[in-house]
Structures are given as C-alpha cells and as structure tokens.
C-alpha cells in the first residue's frame, strides 16, 4: 500500500530531514511512526502526501509511483488518502456537518452521496448529535473526531495521521485511538506519527522508530521505548497532564465543557 525505497529529503540549506528510509506498509496495517521532534516523522507523511518531493529515492502510495505522477494527478492521490493533523484543520465558519461534507463537495461528489455518507461517518465518530455545531463549540477531542470523520468520509485506502493526539489529554486520546483502530479494522491502512508513549505501548502495533531522519527500529508489535536514546528530552514529554504546544487551544477548559 505504501512503499518507500531509499528515500531522502534534504531541505534547502542542507537540513537532512529524512535519510535513506526504506519502508513497506501493507494494506490494512496500523503503523506508528515514533521518534523525537525533528526525527523526520512529519516529513515522511508530507512526502507520502506529495506535499513535497523527495530529494532521492522512490515512493509508491496507493499504487501510484509519486516520483513520476504528473502534478495534475496529485488530487487523485489525495482522494485515496485521508489526513488527520494535530491542529484539526477544521473550517471555523462551517458546522461539523459542513466540514465533513466539504471534503466530498470539493471532489465533486453528487449531493445524494453526501447526504448519505456524511451522517453515516458522523455516527461512526459519535457526533451525530452535534452535526450543527461549529468547531469552536466543540472540545478538542470532538474536533479531532470531526477531522477523522472528514478524513474517512470518502473511504480512503490510507489514513495518515500526524500527531492526532498531540493536542489532547490522555483520556481523550484513548477515544481517538479507538476510532483510528476501528477505521483500521475496516481494512484501511493507518499510519500515525506520534510521540505519545502511552498510546504506542497500549496498542502494541507495528512501530517504526526514526532518529535524525533514519529508521532505527521496525518492530511488528513494538513499544515506544526501545532503541531511543535516553538523553532525548522528548522521552519525557508525553507524561499525562503536560500542556502541549503554546499555540494549542486550552484543552482543560473545553474538556470540562464536554464531560
């Protein structure tokens, strides 16, 4: 489903983000990309989405050879790949329903398809009752579920999630992981970049550990810890009540609204 062959990414200025990564991910697999900040997780996801080209090496995603895919076909690639991000990327002026429907509208799905698929996926993520709410009226966890619904509404072959629980507290994160697990069980390939130890350790799925752009470990039922260097400050980061990035919305306040 996803194959990377000796992929390197060097940015202008010489920063090596990804260094000789080869990786094969089968259909229906659930894979964690772990590693400290700057280890190349996000870059790998951007490469798979063709948001940028690799400096070296070959990438195949959903049966498409990205290196030779003409740029006008990039939208077709993205229609078979759902994406979930740490910051949700919801449109603030659109309701939950509209945000999810938007993903189908802009790829030209007919209205009757939208009318059946959006409520279906909202039921899947447990937000049927809040379909008419605006994103800012939802908790962080709920917003992330909306973005998962949007990623999944078109039934993609692959879901790429970049730190989907990065802005959420542990309890909420568990709900998000259950949801991604359910999606994975439908045969969808899920690749999730994270530095959340607890989640990775609890799920016991395939773990690909990155360090300075290279794969340092690839275990089929791995834990977060392993070959990771102890001196890395990221190893301390995901302990339960740690406030996340300063730009993140105030989780605690919103969570109380929800629960």
């Amino acid at each position, binding site marked *: 489903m996803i194959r990377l062959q000796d992929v390197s990414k060097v940015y202008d200025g010489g920063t090596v983000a990804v260094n000789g990564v080869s990786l094969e991910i089968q259909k229906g697999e659930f894979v964690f990309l772990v590693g400290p900040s700057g280890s190349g997780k996000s870059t790998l996801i951007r490469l798979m989405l063709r948001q940028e080209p690799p400096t070296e090496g070959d990438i195949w995603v959903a049966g498409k050879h990205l290196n030779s895919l003409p740029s006008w076909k*990039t*939208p077709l690639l*993205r229609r078979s790949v759902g994406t979930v991000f740490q910051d949700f*990327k919801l*449109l603030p002026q659109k309701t939950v329903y509209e945000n999810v429907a*938007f*993903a189908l509208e*802009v*790829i030209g799905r007919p209205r009757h398809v939208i009318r059946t698929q959006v409520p279906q996926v909202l039921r899947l993520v447990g937000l049927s009752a809040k379909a008419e709410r605006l994103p800012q009226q939802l908790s962080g966890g709920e917003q992330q579920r909306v973005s998962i619904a949007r990623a999944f509404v*078109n039934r993609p072959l692959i879901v790429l999630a970049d730190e989907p629980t990065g802005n959420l507290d542990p309890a909420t994160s568990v709900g998000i992981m259950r949801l991604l697990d359910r999606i994975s069980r439908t045969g969808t390939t899920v690749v999730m970049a994270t530095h959340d130890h607890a989640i990775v350790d609890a799920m016991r799925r395939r773990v690909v550990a990155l360090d300075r752009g290279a794969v340092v470990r690839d275990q089929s039922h791995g834990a977060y810890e392993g070959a990771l260097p102890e001196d890395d400050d990221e190893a301390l980061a995901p302990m339960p009540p740690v406030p996340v990035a300063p730009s993140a919305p105030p989780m605690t306040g919103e969570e109380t609204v929800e629960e």
Partner: protein
Amino acid sequence: MRFQYVLAQAVQSIRRNPLVVASAIVAVLVTLVLVFGAIVLRWSIDEDIGRWDDNVRVIAFLSDELSVEEVTALQNEVAGWESVEDVVYFSKAQALEEFREMFADQPSLIEVVEEDPSTLPASLRIKPAEAADYSEIRNQLAVVPGVREVSAADEAIDALVTRSNRLQTFAVSIFLVLGTAAVVLIANTIRMAVYARREEIGIMRLVGAGNWFVRVPFLLEGFFEGVIGALLAVLVVGLGHGFIVELLSTVADPENIQVPLDFLLRQSILVLGFGAVTGLVGSALGMWGFLKD
C-alpha cells in the same frame, strides 16, 4: 452543484472585500472609458476626413495679367495632368459674388474688395483624382508661370489625419498603461482573496480538490470584475456620447456627429471582451505561484 459551488465562492469572495474589488472595477472602468472614448472620437475624425476628401479643391490663384487665351491654355494643361480629375475656371466676378455671399454681414469688407479688384483674383479650382495627390498638384503648380499663389486644404486634412493617428497612439498608450494598472489591481484583489481563503484552500488540497476546482472561483472573480468594469465603461461612453450629441445638436448637424449604433454596439462587444480578458489575466497573475499545490 459544482457550478453553483464555484459561483457562490466567487460571489462570496467579492462580497468579502468590496472596497478592493471596487477599486479594481474602477480601474477597468477608467481604462476602458478612455480607450472606448478614443475609439468613438477617432471614428468621428475619420468620418470627417472622408467628407473632406470629396470636397477639397486645390485652388490656383491666377495673375491678373493673363489673357483669356492664356487662361484657357493653362486650364487645359492642368486638366491634362494625371493627378487631376477636373478643373473649373472661377472668374474675378464669380469670386466677388462668392465673397459677397460669405461676408454679407460685413459690408465694410465688401467695400474694400469692391474698391480694389486686384484683391480677389480669378482662379482655377482643381479637383484631385486622389486625396493623396494634393501635394503633387501643389508642387506642379508652383512652377507654372501665371499662377500667383496656390491654396489647398491639405494642411487641414493632414492635421486631421495627424490628429486621428495621435488619438490612436494615445488610445494604445492609455490601454497599455492603465490596462496594466487594471490588471495589477485585479491581481491584487485576487491575491487578497486567495490569502483570505488560504486555510480553506489548504484543506481543499488535502482532501483532493482538483487544481481547476480551486482556481476557477478566483478566475471567475477576476472575470466578473473585468466585465463589470467594461459594462460600466460601455454605459458611460454610450450615455456620454448621447449627451454630447444632444449638446452639439444646436451648433452642428446631429447627422454628422452621431456615431452609428451598430458601430457602437460592435465596439462595445470588443470593450467587454477587453474587460473579460483583463479580468482573467489579472486573476491568473494574482494566483501565480500561490495556487500551485
């Protein structure tokens, strides 16, 4: 459904930034009013030249010493020239008669002329075969003995032709300078619209919206701005022309200054086309580099 969506996006985008959009429309309006105005004005001038072509004569004023035979010989000689279509002899008496008619309200002038018959010489009125032959005839007459002075309206014609050409140059430069300004202003509105919607565009790209699906609303927005500006320009020139014709109808024959409707319509379509192209080019420029994936 898709078309509705695209249209709604364009309209919404125009609403979001009315002032900037208005400035772009005004730029198109001013540009096209000047260009369209120049086109209409040029038509009037060309029409004038056409009328003059038919009526203009080269006049050779004859020396008073010429005998009747000499005049006839001269008339025949000139009539034989290739560039001459027709020669008419205009006697002193006829000249005086004409002068009396022209200055009927100024008896003092007539008195002066009547006292001294030498002031109004006899003349040959020569109709050239071709408009361009004026100067040739004039040059030939200059060396003919017995011709006192040559007068032709060619200076006036030349002046008109020059004015027509100058007007064209003016219209072209206006179009280039203001047209560029209009394109840049439209590009600016589009860039702002793209910027205002960058989040939405990012998400559209992530979920796999096609390139044209992203671009078309912006192209449409630029197109609307161009066409609205052009429509207003057509309106302004149309009304302005009617107003000027009415204003001048007391001093000039409206038949002569009225630009025909079908000419106006044809040019209007051209102007609308200009507006549309200006808008599309502007929005393409505005999106340049911004909307690549």
